[in-house]
């Protein structure tokens, strides 16, 4: 980008909302995938949808790459800046524009924090179902871009299942409005196509979210097992019973150790795995289902089963689970998270193979995952300062992804492809299929200026700065062309 273009861009923003000094840019250089770091040319901080539209149109006119950014918690490098491009930071578009309890919906700006939607809706007995573990910081805009998930996807689906309407400025500068208050649409499902675009189509400006009545009652059971396999079998038994739990989660020994250290969670001793199953609904329904669940769990031979006796105990169970990510971070200087999916019936096999792969590579892997939908979350622990460990970790991550695809699953259940997994997209899709996706991308963004370098294998605009070879590049996991 030339100095003249930068100057004109600066002129569009009031002072303080255009950042270009290195110390100002530092905070935006990476996202939740901390191994990557790219310094953008500038960061702009719009406060209104009109400003965002003007910025995107400017970028279009100048062929200037831009990366939309919510809270920068992407675990796949989705919000990593682009060399020579700008970052559009959307945190100040954080108004809940409308809360409509009668129709059970909220219209929000993209910078609204996920948890704030539920916090606002709660007084009406409503909630916003998608609950990524990062929900207290991540934004709805980021959730929409990544079709984020959470612990309750088995019953409630992902972000896309809760998006009713989207107003967006596309990378061409066109402003579109799709859907609205109705839960149904007429004609193709544009909101469905836009959700999960990973920032490659444009910037969402206003999102209509469906809210659901808060479940009146929960029954949450935590059960400890001697082996991971037993915990996996218990999941199969719950599924086979015909119950539809709101969540089914598993944590392995290393994840448990981490949660104990970080938030003083307490688990049955001597367990290699802990299973969490949660039922929810009207109290009469939960009371009836709970009996069946308790029988199934008892029959699965746990070391111990602990039903939460009150809301506080339930919160404690979830606190342990949701803190597991960052907790594992404390066990090790560095870690990488994968989120591949395998068919549920092959969970046991997948975990065994991950264990074998880990042993072979000499690295520790912690597993915390959404067992109900086969969505693994292996956390690969390593020390970036030990020469070769990052490469080993990346190689191991790649093996795990390939295993997921081989088993008939997916390379990502909810974190998106981003920068990190872009070279694995061809493991899932044929060249024709990737070509089809590229054509779609080009329809929304013919210039390739919206978050270039992400999702598609290597070929697009280079995204990494020449600070020497990035360790991931040395590992052959990412490359620039």
């Amino acid at each position, binding site marked *: 980008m030339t100095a003249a273009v930068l100057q004109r861009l600066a002129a569009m923003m009031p002072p303080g909302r255009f950042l270009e000094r290195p110390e100002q840019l530092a905070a935006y250089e990476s996202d939740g995938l901390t191994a990557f770091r790219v310094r953008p040319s500038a960061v702009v901080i719009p406060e209104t949808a009109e400003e965002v539209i003007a910025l995107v149109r400017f970028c279009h006119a100048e062929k200037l790459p831009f990366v939309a950014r919510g809270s920068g918690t992407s675990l796949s490098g989705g919000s990593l800046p682009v060399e020579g491009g700008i970052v559009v930071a959307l945190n100040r578009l954080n108004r809940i524009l409308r809360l409509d309890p009668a129709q059970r919906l909220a219209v929000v700006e993209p910078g609204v924090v996920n948890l704030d939607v539920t916090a606002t809706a709660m007084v009406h007995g409503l909630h916003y179902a998608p609950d990524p573990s990062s929900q207290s910081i991540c934004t709805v805009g980021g959730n929409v871009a990544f079709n984020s998930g959470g612990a309750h996807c088995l019953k409630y689906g992902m972000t896309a299942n809760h998006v009713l309407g989207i107003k967006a400025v596309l990378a061409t500068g066109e402003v579109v409005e799709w859907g609205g208050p109705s839960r149904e649409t007429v004609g193709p499902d544009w909101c469905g196509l836009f959700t999960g675009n990973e920032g490659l189509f444009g910037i969402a400006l206003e999102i209509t979210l469906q809210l659901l009545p808060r479940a009146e009652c929960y029954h949450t059971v935590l059960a400890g097992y001697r082996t991971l396999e037993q915990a996996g079998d218990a999941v199969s038994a719950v599924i086979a019973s015909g119950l539809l739990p709101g969540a089914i989660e598993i944590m392995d020994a290393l994840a448990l150790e981490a949660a104990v250290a970080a938030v003083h969670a307490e688990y049955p001793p001597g367990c290699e795995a802990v299973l969490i199953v949660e039922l929810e609904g009207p109290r009469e329904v939960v009371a009836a289902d709970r009996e069946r669940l308790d029988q199934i769990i008892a029959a699965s031979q746990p070391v111990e089963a602990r039903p939460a006796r009150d809301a506080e105990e339930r919160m404690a169970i979830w606190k342990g689970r949701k803190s597991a990510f960052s907790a594992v971070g404390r066990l090790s200087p560095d870690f990488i998270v994968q989120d591949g*999916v395998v068919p549920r019936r092959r969970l046991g096999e997948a975990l065994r193979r991950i264990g074998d792969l880990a042993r072979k590579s000499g690295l520790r892997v912690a597993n915390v995952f959404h067992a109900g939908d086969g969505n693994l979350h292996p956390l690969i622990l390593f020390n970036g300062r030990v020469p070769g460990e990052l490469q080993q970790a990346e190689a191991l991550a790649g093996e795990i992804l390939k295993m997921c695809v081989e088993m008939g699953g997916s390379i990502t259940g909810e974190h998106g492809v981003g920068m990190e997994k872009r070279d694995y997209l061809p493991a899932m899709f044929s060249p024709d299929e990737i070509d*089809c996706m590229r054509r779609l991308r080009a329809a929304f963004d013919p210039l390739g200026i919206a978050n270039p370098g992400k999702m598609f294998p290597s070929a697009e605009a280079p995204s990494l700065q020449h600070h020497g070879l990035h360790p991931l590049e040395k590992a052959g996991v990412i490359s620039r062309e």
Partner: protein
Amino acid sequence: MNTVLTPTSAEELVEAVRSTPRVIAVGAGTKPRLSQVEAVRISMAGLRGIKEYDPSEFTFTAAAGTPLGEIADALAERGQYLPFDPMLVDAGATLGGTVAAGVSGPGRFRYGGLRDFVLGVRFVDGTGRLLRMGGKVVKNAAGFDLPKFFVGSLGRFGVLAEMTFKVFPRPPTALTLRLRGGSQILSETANSRFEFDALDIAPGETDMLARLCGPEAALKTLSREIFARWPGEIVSEDPWTALREFRWVNPGASLIKVAVSPAKIATLEGLRCHLSAGGNFAFVSGEAGELDERLCKAGLSGVTLRGEAPLWLGVRSRPAIAQAVKQALDPVNRFPPLDD
């Protein structure tokens, strides 16, 4: 044009698409208005059957021409179902036609519609390539979500060959209640603690049909409390099958799906319609001219499934991106435009 091509495999489907400059896929013809265009017809009847069904995964994969009834039966055998109440099952509607038409039923209210249960598609694009998008597992975020886009796309962007769906365990019992108050109590009932499965108003009725699902013991207790709040009674005969099959629509009359929101249901007042899913969509039968006017005024839209009415009613926005996406998937205009 009376030509009908009858492929019996995905490969033959590719050939069929490539063989002629303008094609449209047809299923069982239960929503004939959608394919009433100048084009060679590809009958999907020969692409039939469930390819994979694994109850423990909550997923199945079936060819596009598979009748919904065949799927419902296979699922029921294993205690599972598609919770959105697929329509026109007895009439022989196919899975592919249902997706392309974007027609969900009353059960859409609780867990979502077609768009929320379709996981993956195999389709032939306008250049005659057989492509797979989405996945076969219940959770997948890799690549763009074209499977959702195909819901309601009317065969104008590609021919569906095969689809993978998520399914749910079927609740042990269902109970239908008739509640006084009809549209007046829509939002109260929808927001209540009871977690209704469906909230509908049948044509010509003013009462609400509310369906509760769950363990039998719980439903009894719940219904007592419900009646204390909204007077009504248990419906012993099944009202849903007749609605599902559109038995209330006169032969030859038009049938239009309208996406509405609970706050705008007054738009449909006095019209012959089945208001469904807590006031989120309606099937309307009758004179299209007036409906069109009312929808325009209210900012709503509809699509004609049967009869001679125009394909689209009410407001219609066709942003430039719609054409660009059409070009991306169908650069040679092999399929009719959306507005045909």
